[in-house]
């Protein structure tokens, strides 16, 4: 255990409610709860390992700048919020609209040191890019809103920055044509569709992107390059549906929603109706809270999590 994690644990202690503050870009701290800040700083970046270790309080922008200098990035859903801290990104687990190509941000977390509700430092995972030693605590931590434990330090998997990232707009996109588009593209990074037109993100070698665009044109899918990256998250609500439900959902609301095709996120002005959770699933959550934070003192009220 590092001295930084130990001192963070000491600050959190074993009693009383605490709120771990990141940059406050995603969630606002409640009043009347003691606030602590996670360690910040990039400790170790190994370009030839494609790993980086840093404090959870490190600003994402600082981490991005360090990695960019060596042509790498880490997927933390930056495009959804841009700013914030590494710990905040992992604790919320919020992906951005490049998830189709870049995967879920939970795949970025290799090792975590967190402080549990008793004030103990607990480690999960390991520093290597491949590891099946023990149960996968890292997956559980991403999206836990800091309520299993306060994130202290993490090791993350980095990736090479694609040679090019380009956006294209294709009009007159019916359900049939959007399905054709999906099956024609090798590995798009994003397909956003509002029922009328699509915005497609292609990444990789510039010549490959040019070839893809030519191929689409040959099949009547004429695209026009757009300069500005869209931000579907400017709509206030997200729906989570299966990728196959997207087609009917968007067709019925053309122009009023934007879907991440192939993923199943729909950006909307309306809130998704609350879903009911299986009681057995809620029970598993309850047992986890009872073990990791028996006094329910970490980040009280954060996240809408079952069993809390």
């Amino acid at each position, binding site marked *: 255990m590092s001295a930084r994690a130990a001192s963070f644990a000491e600050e959190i202690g074993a009693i009383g409610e605490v709120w771990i503050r990141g940059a406050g870009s995603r969630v606002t701290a409640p009043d009347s709860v003691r606030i602590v800040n996670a360690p910040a700083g990039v400790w170790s970046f190994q370009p030839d390992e494609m790993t980086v270790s840093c404090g959870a309080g490190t600003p994402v922008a600082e981490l991005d700048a360090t990695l960019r200098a060596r042509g790498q990035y880490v997927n933390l859903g930056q495009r959804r919020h841009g700013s914030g801290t590494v710990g905040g990104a992992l604790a919320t687990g919020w992906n951005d609209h490049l998830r189709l190509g870049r995967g879920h941000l939970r795949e970025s977390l290799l090792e975590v040191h967190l402080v549990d509700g008793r004030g103990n430092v607990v480690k999960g995972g390991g520093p290597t890019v491949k590891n*099946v*030693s023990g*149960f996968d605590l890292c997956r559980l931590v991403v999206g*836990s809103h800091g309520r299993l434990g306060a994130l202290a330090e993490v090791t993350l998997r980095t990736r090479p920055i694609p040679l090019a990232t380009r956006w294209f707009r294709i009009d007159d996109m019916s359900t049939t044509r959007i*399905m054709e588009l999906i099956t024609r593209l090798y590995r798009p990074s994003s397909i956003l569709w509002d029922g009328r037109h699509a915005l497609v993100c292609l990444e990789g070698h510039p*010549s490959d992107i040019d070839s893809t665009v030519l191929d689409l044109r040959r099949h009547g899918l004429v695209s026009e390059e757009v300069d500005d990256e869209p931000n579907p998250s400017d709509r206030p609500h997200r729906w989570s549906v299966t990728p196959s439900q997207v087609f009917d959902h968007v067709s019925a609301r053309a122009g009023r929603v934007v879907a991440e095709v192939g993923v199943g996120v729909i950006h909307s002005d309306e809130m998704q109706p609350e879903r009911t959770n299986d009681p057995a699933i809620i029970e598993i959550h309850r047992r*986890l809270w009872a073990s990791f934070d028996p006094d329910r003192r970490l980040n009280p009220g954060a996240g809408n999590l079952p069993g809390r």
Partner: protein
Amino acid sequence: MTSGLLDALRSAIGPDSVRDNATELMLAGHDASNLVGQAGAICYPSTADDVRRIVDVCRAHDVAFVARGAGTGLAGGATPIGGAVVVCTTKMNRILDVDHVARLAWVEPGVLNLDLTRHVSRWGLHFAPDPSSQQSCSIGGNVANNSGGPHCLAEGVTSAHVLACDVVLSDGSLVRLGGEEPEPDGLDLRGAFVGSEGMFGITTAICVRLTPDPTDVRTMLLDFDTVRAGTDTVSAIIAAGMVPAALEMMDRLCLQAVEAYIHAGLPTDAAAALLVEIAGAPAAVATDAETVERIGREHGARTVRVARDEAERALLWKGRKNAFGAIARIKPNYYLHDTVVPRRHLSDVLDHVYRIAAEQDLLVLNVFHAGDGNLHPLLVFDKREPGVLERVHRAGAAIVEVSVAHGGVLSGEHGIGLEKRDYMPLLFSDLDLEAQGWMRSAFDPLGLANPFKVLPSPSGCGDAHAHVEGLWV
């Protein structure tokens, strides 16, 4: 085994689906390791309901159950301890649904890994995790072990390809962990379940992500005068900002054994060879292939052989994936290790591996996933030689210790099971292990699902812990 339990199992799922003859019990008493346990009965469920009924009977009789896929595990994860009921999923082998537009499929746990890829190849798709045992291992087993394979360097291991699991818990409830939808409520219980080695419950259906086949593939073989030149090339390739589809290494003894077996024209006088595969879109593949060749030559590659066609590519991969079969030409038994180290320490750790083998008077071959630092030292021996097993175990322990000492981990893809359970404290503190115990208890507070694995237990498990003998097949 009490007749009461057997009767209850037979009445639950039908007499033909419950077996207890001595031969079958013996076969179910171990996986592909030879960590031998004792099965009380073997059940062959056909449906999720069958699995629930079996679990209900086990709970009523306070008997543990152990899920078993194809039995290809290498760490004793499916080895039943103390008369546990083995729940063999081989009859649950249906591909339930494929959505080739959304690129996902629902499968039962007994579907074989390669069978799924063969089935979806008509749409230009495949299932990315490709363990060397992919012809015979089951997807349920892949989920249990969070399995890897050569092509997981670029694509990630099983967890990244599983969207949902339907799971029977030890209390008999059937739950869905994760989902086809991208943002299910709550914690990522799916992610916790993948890699839980059968200790959280039994999966009855799995939703997997399918990956589009690359449009271009370039497979190259580079050979070197020293192992270090090869491993330095690996680091330089990654540092150049490239993630090849696969980056595999074979050392001299391995090259010689494989060449005698497949006659692929492998460089048997080289100290090491790298098998590099670049996959993707044409321009990216061409550029990356040039970079790999340049980096290889800068690091002293003697030759760079590029597979000219699919036949040559298949031959090179046959050499890699069948390396273990070729080993039998040297000695009849082998013990395969699996540790991961940071890539930059590959050379130093391999030096230690050769030294350790020499000290124990053993032959060692190395054939491994160099790209992600995943070592697979293969100790070959003849178990009829007196005292050889003790030397094999000593060497194995030393390899694990040296890997961890270099910032590595216990296992990259085989799992902990029984084999590495007692090494867990090398990597984790008591508090870390306690937290892993909490995860298990959250899913299985009764402790009936595959007990005695993964987590070292200071007491209370009695003789079951006494004979972890290691792996020789």
